[in-house]
């Protein structure tokens, strides 16, 4: 599965547009990580626990999108976009969407 956030794939031609595919995940942080983040808030800098958490979550959302594309017979997803929204206190939704296509 080829992923790209551009509209076309260089060197290949899109033979069929399948349609919009998407993947999402909602994650909450756990208390231990929050505690460490509280300490970091005194001196500043990176909140590594959160970075990892969001990265994992985004990978999962992407995997779900890829799965949806595979079911519909695509071999590439173009124009991939990410978005993040805080839905409630302490939980974020990571959302990824793109257009599933068949390339030759």
């Amino acid at each position: 599965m080829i992923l790209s956030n551009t509209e076309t794939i260089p060197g290949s031609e899109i033979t069929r547009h399948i349609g919009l595919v998407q993947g999402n995940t909602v994650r909450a942080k756990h208390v231990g990580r929050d505690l460490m983040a509280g300490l970091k808030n005194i001196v500043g800098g990176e909140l590594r626990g959160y970075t990892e958490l969001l990265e994992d979550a985004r990978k999962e959302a992407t995997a779900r999108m890829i799965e949806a594309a595979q079911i519909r017979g695509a071999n590439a997803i173009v124009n991939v976009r990410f978005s993040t929204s805080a839905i409630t206190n302490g939980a974020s939704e990571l959302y990824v969407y793109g257009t599933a296509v068949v390339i030759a």
Partner: protein
Amino acid sequence: MYELGFSALLLIIGVIFGTRAQRKHIEQLDRREAALSYLVVTNLKTIPDGLGQPLLVTGSVVIAFDYFRRFIASIIMLVGGNISMYEVMLDRARREALVRLLEQADAAGAREVHNVRFEFSRVGSSAQQAGVGGGAELFAYGTAVR
């Protein structure tokens, strides 16, 4: 009185460690950016023809809004104007996210990265409401090609 002393202590810790970490981080960023400067980075939507298979690359970083900065910012907010401390902080974070993206591209053997986009989102809003800061995620993504 006791509380005031505690706040002052937090401020001093924030100033000392925060500024030192910032200086080190900027030096480190300069080095890493120089090492990756051979990559062509654009935010163009279409990739020039004749290149290899594309690969989606990402880079992200979550930064804390620390005690010292929030304190100074709250004072500046009374009179308005530039909060240059936050400017520097966000700039650092965005550069870090981009460098992580470029490192991923570099590891995949790419020569160019196109259609680079940045996203910003707040995390840990419960911490923010409790008055202990919270943070923000800077996220960059793009398409790497050989």
